[in-house]
């Protein structure tokens, strides 16, 4: 079965300066290449194949193209804005800033229920599993995990999938991180070590690990 756009919510989780945004950027670069190919092949309405970002660090601005959207924290109805687009990638850097309450807003739930139909994929970034909202967990099926400071219980509770494996991922990540000094780690840019974790299939992939 062919993979279809519009059901992926990927949570990129890692503590500060571990390379979350750099990895998200790489995914956006890939996405840009993909939409170039798609738009060469066929015509699309102007609300298709867009990049929609909440970008407080201005880390994605150079990757944006005409018609791409910047979300604003002050915009209380940003979900409605996103719902205007089709077959697009939504990147929410530090997503919790957009959702300050502990309860998912009606607008966001609406967005979640419509995402498959409208072809909206989400890459959300957060610095701690603690900040993954309880109700949001059920929508997330893929994780890009970097070094985190959470304890095992917290990590296993918030990251979907087989718990011992999830804890194993955390330990592997932390051990890998400790192999580098700060300076050495910065030099890895943009190839930081991370684990891609598919919680639904219990499938893990190590990426850029020194320890093969």
């Amino acid at each position: 079965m062919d993979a279809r756009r519009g059901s992926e919510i990927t949570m990129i989780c890692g503590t500060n300066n571990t390379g979350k945004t750099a990895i998200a950027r790489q995914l956006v670069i890939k996405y840009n290449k993909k939409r170039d190919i798609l738009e060469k092949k066929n015509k699309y309405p102007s609300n298709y194949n867009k990049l929609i970002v909440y970008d407080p660090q201005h880390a994605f601005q150079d990757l944006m193209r005409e018609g791409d959207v910047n979300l604003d924290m002050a915009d209380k109805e940003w979900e409605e804005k996103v719902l205007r687009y089709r077959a697009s990638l939504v990147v929410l850097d530090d997503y919790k800033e957009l959702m300050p309450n502990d309860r998912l807003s009606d607008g966001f739930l609406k967005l979640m229920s419509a995402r498959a139909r409208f072809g909206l994929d989400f890459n959300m970034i957060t610095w701690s599993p603690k900040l993954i909202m309880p109700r949001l967990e059920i929508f997330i099926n893929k994780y890009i995990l970097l070094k985190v400071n959470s304890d095992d219980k917290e990590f296993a509770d918030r990251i979907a999938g087989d718990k011992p494996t999830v804890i194993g991922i955390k330990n592997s990540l932390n051990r890998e991180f400790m192999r580098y000094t700060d300076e050495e780690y910065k030099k890895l840019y943009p190839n930081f070590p991370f684990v891609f974790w598919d919680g639904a299939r219990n499938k893990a992939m190590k990426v850029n690990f020194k320890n093969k």
Partner: protein
Amino acid sequence: MENFNRPENNDNVPELDNVGNVSFDEVAEIYDYEKMGDTIEEELEEFRGKSSIEQREVNEEVSNGFSLDALDDVGEGVNVGIREEEGEIEEEEPLEEYFSSAEFMIWLLELALVWSTNFYLKNQELDKISISEFEKTKTEQRFLVKSLAKVLRKHNTKVSPEMELLFAIGSAYGMKIKGIIKKQRERKEEDLIKHKKNSAKIIKISPKVAVKEKLKTNIEEYNKKEIFIFDPNGIEKEEEEEEVKSNGINIIG
């Protein structure tokens, strides 16, 4: 029960040593979609079936947010246009539209007002009220009478003799009000001139000089620092000088 508080770097800690290391591209391939969802595919097929002009129109609509603002209810909004085309949504008839409009409600309210006023005034001895008596009444009452007269006149209501009197009173009082406003405005202008006169340098000139120098003496000049005012004494003096000159010429001639 599982123990989640395992210490880190312990030998018993499970790790992913058996998991292979892959390149970033392999992860990116997971997101490399060719296919879209059915709804999207249908929308795209519809779009591609249109002519380039129609496609441009769709894009303009999208960029203007015209079609998008209809998305109050997800899914419903998108289908409204389609259902309209199929004729599922019937347009309101003009008459129904009028009855549901605000204009109609205002008309109904005014009609009720006219009727109740007629009813109320019939029970009053309005024919005994003179204009002078009317002027002595309270401001609110006078305002009410004028407002009612306005509404009644607007609807060309066939009015009783009492109402005729009411009109007469209203219009008479209205004229008086106009006069007061005019007087107030004049007084304001006078005050302004007075104020300007006190604060600006006044140069008295004769009308001839004013014409020669192309000076204006209207209100616009008050915004400037110098004001030119016609001086009647100056006119008389000029006339006398002219007479003397002409006499002189006659003598010489």
